[in-house]
């Protein structure tokens, strides 16, 4: 039976959906250097739908006022919206309670908060912290700094040539001195989806708490903190179609109860006298000062966008784009891929053989194609581990199309032709 018609129909249906979805992203509809913008730097930050953009102006146009403070109606409305977002976040990652959801600036602040509260209290001289060789600087430098301050030791779970964690020796890596493990869920450079459940189970057998850097995981897969049983987790709003300057730290309530505050001031107090202060309940104990109210509210709008689009639809579309790009790039040849793990998200790090990543990036930019070049905030991984000058990274989001991938592939051919 000839089913071309059916396939064609499905294709049109698919493309139709993407094109319809793109209408919600006004920024995509522009030219750069005289060429239509093709935005393939989604792992750095993705673009925002109108619902998110509008939620910010809507907040300032209708309910702007400080939260948790006034008795007046506007303040109550702002508080309701702000706390409503916290509930959306709780549901998004399936936390037990909103007490476990702390609004922060982003993943970086989430990690810093844990390092300088939990870390400060629990890590002593000679103790050990474990991260992986593929950490983003924001889940590496805070621990490095803590270890330096405390004379503690930072240990690394090694990475193999494919960009997968080598977990064979994890049992041996964990000792009585190990106080904390912090691991990236999905690598922003390699795209590897790490077997974090295995790491968490192993760590918990040794009573070591685990933090997940979920910056790249949150936009791509369903996070269930209870199922994962992670102790801490952080992600950024701007990588899940939300605004910059807002992110989330999740932590199990028992840890948040034990931890000292991160910053001090208004909001985080219950009562203050000249002599002493009683700290506020969770999660406010960790939210000193006027928070990023509009940011938190539009983070809620971003979660609404993800829910209404469907994380599965998003994952499917990204998988389709990833497969298409890999097919086109493999056909082309002369490309070295960095990160070829079996479990991968829609991130492709590569080098055109014999061509410097900056040269590739410059030509692509001139063709209107936005990719990232360099170390991707994982300098030790690129420079020390893989001995490379950097890589070119293309990363896809739900609004990208297979036509864009084709133009990207043509762009790579042009680069090879010019520089090869």
């Amino acid at each position: 039976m000839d089913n071309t018609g059916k396939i064609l129909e499905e294709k049109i249906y698919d493309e139709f959906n993407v094109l319809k979805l793109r209408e919600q992203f006004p920024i995509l509809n522009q030219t750069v250097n005289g060429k239509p913008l093709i935005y393939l730097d989604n792992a750095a930050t993705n673009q925002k739908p109108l619902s998110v953009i509008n939620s910010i102006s809507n907040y300032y146009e209708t309910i702007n006022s400080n939260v948790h403070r006034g008795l007046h109606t506007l303040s109550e409305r702002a508080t309701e919206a702000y706390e409503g977002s916290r509930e959306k976040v709780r549901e998004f990652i399936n936390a037990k309670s909103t007490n476990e959801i702390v609004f922060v600036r982003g993943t970086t602040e989430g990690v810093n908060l844990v390092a300088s509260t939990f870390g400060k209290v629990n890590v002593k001289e000679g103790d050990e912290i474990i991260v992986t060789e593929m950490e983003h600087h924001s889940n590496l430098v805070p621990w490095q700094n803590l270890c330096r301050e405390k004379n503690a030791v930072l240990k690394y779970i090694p990475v193999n040539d494919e960009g997968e964690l080598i977990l064979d020796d994890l049992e041996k890596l964990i000792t009585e001195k190990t106080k904390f493990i912090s691991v990236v869920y999905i690598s922003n450079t390699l795209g590897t989806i790490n077997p974090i459940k295995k790491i968490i189970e192993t760590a918990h057998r040794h009573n070591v708490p685990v933090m997940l850097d979920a910056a790249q995981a949150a936009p791509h897969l369903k996070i269930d903190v209870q199922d994962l049983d992670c102790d801490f987790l952080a992600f950024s709003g701007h990588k899940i179609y939300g605004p910059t300057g807002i992110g989330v730290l999740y932590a199990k309530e028992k840890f948040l109860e034990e931890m000292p505050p991160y910053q001090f001031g208004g909001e985080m107090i219950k009562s203050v006298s000249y002599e002493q202060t009683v700290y506020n309940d969770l999660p406010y104990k960790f939210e000193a000062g006027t928070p990023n109210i509009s940011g938190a509210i539009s983070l809620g709008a971003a979660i609404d966008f993800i829910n209404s689009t469907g994380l599965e639809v998003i994952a499917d579309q990204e998988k389709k784009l990833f497969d298409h790009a890999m097919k086109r790039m493999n056909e082309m040849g002369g490309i070295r891929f960095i990160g070829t793990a079996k479990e991968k998200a829609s991130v492709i790090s590569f080098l055109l053989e014999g061509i410097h990543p900056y040269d590739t990036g410059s030509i692509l930019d001139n063709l209107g194609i936005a990719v990232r070049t360099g170390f991707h905030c994982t300098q030790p991984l690129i420079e020390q581990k893989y001995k490379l000058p950097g890589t070119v990274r293309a990363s896809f989001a739900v609004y990208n199309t297979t036509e864009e991938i084709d133009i990207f592939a043509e762009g790579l051919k042009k680069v090879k032709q010019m520089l090869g």
Partner: protein
Amino acid sequence: MNKSIKELEEEIIEEFSLFDDWMGKYEYIIELGKNLPLIDPKFKTEEFKVKGCQSQVWLSSEMKDGKLFYYADSDAVITKGIISLLIRVLSGHKPGEISEADMNFINKIGLKEHLSPNRANGLTAMINYMKKYAAAYAEQNVN
């Protein structure tokens, strides 16, 4: 009689005016990059690295008959091409002339606009290095 820095700048501006889009200009820069004479490998060390560039750049210099000559290399071809323009303009002149050059041709050919901010910073760093060398030699001469 050798051409002055100003004359060389004018020459480059004219060459670039022949291209009507940036792809053509890039192709030309890449060609220049491929033709840049390589630096002696002994200078490819940390000491001769230009800091502030995202790609690796090495720069050395030499005085001959009161004139300053530059040699450079980079692991990125476009960077190399851009450096070769700088060398073409500045190399072989008196240190005093070099430190006074305004390098206006860079704006005139629209180079900076077409570089990523990282690259534009690198370009500024490179010019500063070249001028620093020149200033150092100029001072030596006075003393």
